[in-house]
């Protein structure tokens, strides 16, 4: 039982990071109707920005995270403007290949700048963790969970209560109609990319504080898993992303603990295929009918 609880907590930690990244995938998909493959690499951009700020410029950690968030948001907006906006009316194939290209570009630029060697991130938070009975919860896990919950609530409030948030909902529902209603579609899409990328920066900070080492390809696998989380929860659905991320993290950790450490990846990907077969729109997704 103790092992089970420890493993569950470990799963929640990974799952929260997946959830934060999945939120970015889901928001962008909901609004721009595109799969932003490069989203995973934004967490790498965030992590390296924070790394440079803390270890080279000796900025205090919280300020460094803020810088990371801003840099990522700018990256997200610029990438959208340069690479995705000109392709808005083309096939999903075109956009997807471009996004893969952007993902590779970010990884390889970072490889050239920072090199292959993993960098060790200085401790961002100083929090020792708590003991619940005989179960130990590491400080990073508590911070990760707390941050994810706070962000989730803030995001839900933002989307449902503010004007900009409602504009996002409107654009995701029907771009043309939203434009007719006087909503600035371009600005709304930019805002979505900015928020999604900012969340990725937070995920990058949490990733680095949990796993210490960062490298240029850190976003690739994490990004793919987070995308699976988004699909699992139903892409386009914000609670779905949260739910999918946590479920995926827990499933992954428990399958490592109780089934096999060797094939846990195969299990995760297998689940994705199964879910898509049974419920192509994910667990919490809405069904849409395709029209000519």
């Amino acid at each position, binding site marked *: 039982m103790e092992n089970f609880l420890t493993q569950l907590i470990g799963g929640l930690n990974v799952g929260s990071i997946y959830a934060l990244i999945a939120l970015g995938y889901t928001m962008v998909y909901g609004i721009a109707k595109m799969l932003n493959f490069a989203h995973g690499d934004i967490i790498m951009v965030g992590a390296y920005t924070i790394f440079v700020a803390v270890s080279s410029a000796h900025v205090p950690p919280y300020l460094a995270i803020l810088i990371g968030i801003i840099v990522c948001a700018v990256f997200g907006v610029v990438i959208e403007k340069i*690479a995705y906006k000109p392709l808005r009316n083309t096939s999903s194939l075109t956009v997807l290949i471009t996004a893969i290209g952007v993902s590779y570009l970010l990884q390889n630029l970072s*490889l*050239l700048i920072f090199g292959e060697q993993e960098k060790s991130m200085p401790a961002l938070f100083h929090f020792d963790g708590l003991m619940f009975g005989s179960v130990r919860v590491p400080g990073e896990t508590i911070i990760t969970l707390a941050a994810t919950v706070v962000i989730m609530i803030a995001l839900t409030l933002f989307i449902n209560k503010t004007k900009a948030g409602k504009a996002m909902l409107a654009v995701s529902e029907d771009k043309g109609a939203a434009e007719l209603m006087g909503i600035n579609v371009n600005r709304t899409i930019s805002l979505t990319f900015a928020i999604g990328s900012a969340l990725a920066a937070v995920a990058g900070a949490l990733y680095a504080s949990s796993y210490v080492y960062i490298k240029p390809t850190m976003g690739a696998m994490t990004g*793919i898993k987070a995308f699976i989380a988004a699909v699992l929860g139903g892409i386009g659905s914000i609670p779905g992303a949260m739910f999918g991320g946590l479920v995926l993290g827990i499933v992954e950790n428990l399958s490592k603990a109780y089934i096999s450490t*060797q094939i846990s990846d195969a299990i995760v990907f297998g689940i994705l*295929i199964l879910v898509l077969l049974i419920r192509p729109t994910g667990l919490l997704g809405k069904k849409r009918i395709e029209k000519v």
Partner: protein
Amino acid sequence: MKKLLNKKNLFYLILTVVVWGVLFALSEGRVLSYQMRNMLVPIGVNIILAVSLNLIVGFLGELALGHAGFMAVGAYAGCLLIKTMSGLPPMLALVIGMLAGGLAAAAIGFVIGLPVLRLRGDYVAIVTLAFGQIIVTLLTNMKVTGGASGLKEIPMEANFTIVYIVMVVTVLIIATLANSRHGRAISAIRENEVAARSIGINITYYKMLAFVISAFFAGIAGVLYGSNLGILIPRSFDYNKSIEILVFVVLGGMGSLPGSVIAATILTLLPELLREFSDYRMLAYSIVLIAMMLLNASPRFESVKAKLNWRRLWALLKQKLEKKPNKA
């Protein structure tokens, strides 16, 4: 039958043989450098991979990110079989291995086709990606495949001639398919699936056809790859390999077989000729992907392209050639 053996085709048949003869002689006569002799087989393998992926990406219009997975299935199945056939003449064993590898990959292509048929666009990409990852994970953990240390001691029988033959046959079959009624049906699905269904095209059948054939040839390429290296390790078939093949297709032009052939040739040779720039290779790939997509979508480039297409260039060349004797 009359159509098949016309003057033009005969000419190309002879030309194919002549090019083979020239390359073969250059290679056997050691006129080519060691490095270039060594590149002949990989170029052929990459052409087969690019042309077969083009069937899914270019003609069917679905993004498959698991082509290396098909290649891996074929490579392992075929090479495992070849290893058991030490009694047979090596060439015969290789041919049987290739067929077996192709069929194994085609079978997996069928299995992957099942979920893919129910999904659209982005989901296809992600399912094929997931499939590729599962294949690599399984290959890393299975005893029979040698796990992470790889499948070793595969008889190294792949040579230029056999790769050349397989390559020509592959290009021929896929080109013929693409220009047939089936090929037009596949392209119709790419243009608009709902409209294609409404005019009575059997979507399921054609999607499956494209997947299975594409996987079949990827599997054959895999066997040739293994037979060329003598060792197969799972991580050679990861996501990056799939992307590399995709870059061949995209750079050559989606839906263009000659493009795939040329892009695969150049992109296989270039990294070897420019070894000192290997740090920048992947960076260049990423820029190529983005630039090609943006250019293709921009209307100005469309008009430039219309002016500079194959047929026009060919006609121009012909015009020049025909004019020359007049001047003289």
